[in-house]
């Protein structure tokens, strides 16, 4: 189990998770705002601009050299979509000097660096450094473009795009390619100032440290205006009368079959635990119906799995198959969903799935990242759920709960990326 202490410190919420598991200490800053078309491309650019340079370390080489001096501290940024929220994450991980035979406290230096990145980025004439912005615009365009090249990610993106057409959830976290060019360094900086005022900001510290030890250090370095918290969005629910089927042809050797379902159940709902178990029996693991029937029995695929998006109320099934096996694979997947709907699963499958989910949760909190991601669900959602409630919730799920939650799972969209000259048989 893990303990978390949380406290409002000058406009951000500080979360401290004390643990002696690791040889390093981790700082993670998360900035959250509603996902919307007009902002998403700028938001996608900002963390990459920030990680280039600060006033104190005014070039990529200077900043990266400083990280090397801090015993190879790592600095990473990334973007995520949780329900209809856009989340920017900045991570710094730094060695615990205890294992280095005593040097100065590296965590404090890392915290200073993070605050420099946020509050003292390299600027010129009321904007970010123009050359850095241009360089990162190019990199962003390349990143957006490269989505096309990873066919599994591409198929996943296309499914969501089709399934949520016209709603914010259809947006890619990296934004839109044709919106990149018009961004300039001044406008971007203005937007950044807006984010600092309005984004919901959470700072996590995981390591051999207590809240009392570092609250002062954080307050000294991070001073933000007070803001209203808990801006939540309600996920868009698409109402579709008929399942839509989309077939896209490209020069590929393997067909990517992705199915999108509306689960109509999210993290906020009482039935969320039951949905986790439902998904586990259906396709979450190597003992699940999809793996057994699509892969082991029919030999149609190497991977065949399902997973749920906790805040959007969607579930996705994915399988990589021979293009000519489209109908057969679909038939088997539908049959498994039907079996779930009819309650055709054994008590043993329930017990097995619960055991595996429990194990997965306990393993998740063996990593700093895992603890933070679990805790951050409570920032996204309105419902607060400490870790022990996750475990208890799964344990309590009954067969009736699973059948009930399954009644709300509806197939919405079938997306198939397949070979160019192949025919659907």
């Amino acid at each position, binding site marked *: 189990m893990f303990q978390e202490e949380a406290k409002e410190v000058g406009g951000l919420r500080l979360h401290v998770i004390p643990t002696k598991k690791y040889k390093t200490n981790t700082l993670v800053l998360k900035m959250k705002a509603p996902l919307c078309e007009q902002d998403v491309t700028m938001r996608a650019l900002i963390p990459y601009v920030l990680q280039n340079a600060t006033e104190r370390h005014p070039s990529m*080489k200077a900043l990266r050299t400083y990280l090397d001096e801090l015993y190879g501290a790592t600095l990473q940024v990334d973007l995520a979509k949780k329900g209809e929220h856009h989340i920017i994450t900045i991570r710094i991980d730094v060695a615990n000097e205890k294992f280095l035979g005593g040097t100065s406290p590296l965590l404090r230096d890392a915290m200073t660096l993070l605050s420099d990145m946020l509050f003292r980025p390299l600027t010129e004439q009321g904007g970010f450094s123009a050359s850095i912005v241009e360089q990162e615009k190019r990199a962003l365009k390349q990143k957006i473009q490269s989505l096309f090249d990873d066919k599994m990610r591409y198929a996943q993106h296309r499914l969501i795009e089709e399934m949520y057409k016209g709603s914010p959830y259809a947006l890619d976290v990296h934004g839109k390619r044709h919106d990149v060019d018009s961004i300039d360094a001044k406008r971007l900086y203005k937007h950044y100032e807006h984010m600092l005022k309005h984004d919901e900001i959470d700072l996590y510290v995981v390591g051999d440290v207590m809240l009392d030890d570092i609250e002062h250090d954080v307050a000294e370095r991070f001073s933000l205006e007070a803001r209203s918290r808990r801006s939540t969005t309600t996920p868009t629910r698409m109402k579709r009368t008929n399942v839509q089927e989309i077939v896209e042809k490209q020069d590929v050797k393997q067909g990517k079959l992705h199915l999108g379902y509306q689960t109509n159940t999210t993290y906020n709902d009482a039935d969320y635990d039951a949905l986790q178990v439902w998904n586990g029996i259906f396709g979450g693991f190597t003992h699940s119906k999809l793996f057994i029937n699509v892969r082991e029995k029919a*030999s149609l695929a*190497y991977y065949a799995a399902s997973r749920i998006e906790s805040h959007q109320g969607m579930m996705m099934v994915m399988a990589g198959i*021979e293009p000519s096996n489209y109908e057969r694979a679909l038939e088997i997947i539908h049959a498994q969903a039907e079996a779930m709907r009819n309650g055709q699963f054994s008590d043993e499958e329930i017990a097995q799935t619960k055991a*595996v989910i429990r194990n997965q949760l306990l393993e998740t909190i*063996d990593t700093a990242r895992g603890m933070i991601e679990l805790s951050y669900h409570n920032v996204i959602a309105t419902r607060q759920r400490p870790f022990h409630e996750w475990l208890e919730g799964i344990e309590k799920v009954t067969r009736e709960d699973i059948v009930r939650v399954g009644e709300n799972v509806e197939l919405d969209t079938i997306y198939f990326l397949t070979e160019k000259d192949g025919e659907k048989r």
Partner: protein
Amino acid sequence: MKVIRYDQLHEQLFYERLANGLDVYILPKKEFNKTYATFTTKYGSVDNYFTPYGKTSMKKVPDGIAHFLEHKLFEKEDGDVFQTFSKQGASANAFTSFTRTAYLFSSTTDVEKNVETLLNFVQDPYFTEQTVEKEKGIIAQEIRMYDDHPDWRLYFGTIESMYHHHPVKIDIAGTVESISHITKDLLYECYETFYHPSNMLLFVTGPVDPLAMLEQIRANQTKKTFRPPTDIERFRYEEPSYVARKKHVIEMNVQTPKCLVGIKAKNVYTKGKEKLKHECAIGLLLDYLFGKSSLNYERLYQQGLIDETFMVDYTEESDFGFSLIGGDTLHPDRLAEEIQRILLQFDDIDDEQVERLKRKKIGTFLRSLNSLEYIANQFTRYAFDHMSLFDVVATLQSLTSNDLKVVARECFVQEQFTVCQVVPKKVK
């Protein structure tokens, strides 16, 4: 039993070689919930030409057979081992690399049962013609998946170009054609040759009582009978130092081109301290030249030749070694030229920078010890070549600028370079 203490790291490693030759290592990690265990044989995709156990002459086996065997070991007469593990709340998996096949599980409960399951399923093969045929469809889809994956094609395209004969150039999974020749008898033959305990290593790490765990493993192994260990005779491929192909361009259905420069290592030590030093020196040198804090990285990034996918990596295992440098780029030819120019013009070394990078590498090593998976997998890799994961820091600390110059002279030679690119298919 031996206990090895690493005081500065606050770690203790328990070791015993069992009577049947199996090496067992246990690293207690009390703060963790999970236990992670790997059971690994020194047998990978490069072991395709050897004298099978009980035979007198060398034999070549179909490409991809080590990986195929890995898949098939999970299936038993009474069903699938994945089911057994998941009933015991464990998550199981396996992987095959150039030189190793590893079976593993992680679990937070029933650890003793899961260790039993791991040992027993790996040591009890069950292959039939029917199950072997069934697996061909599954693995064919695994191969197809990689066929569509541009980064994988780029990676293997580069390795393929470097080697004339060495089987490291062959894709680990083989091809749809090569696996069609695999039979149950061939699987048994490979199994008998390479899965003897004396060719294997068990690593357990997590919140375990090391003595009780060792006792359990010993008891499990004592109950079984094994033939006496024999030396495994593997074919030694003669490989020139120059690359087989200077440039290779793969046209694919992509939008962003990719480029890798490969450098074939000339002197590869096959084991021990010399090998560890060699690997660490090349790793440090590549970081010096192309790491994120290098002038070269900053310049290439500013010139728009690289983006965040840019990577440098050095692999050295058994008798082969190669460096890879590159990533996504809109200008694959210019990037290839720039990288080679940097390599060939390299002459002097800034000592201060080297010291800073050693610091960085030491911090990176500490960070890697946060991961039980990293510890078990890397410890095993090093141990198979008679090195220790825990000697990495001391080895790094001992490196001098001169050591880097020595490996630079050895590696940065035009005839050892190759260029591989993935480019968008031309529209006809």
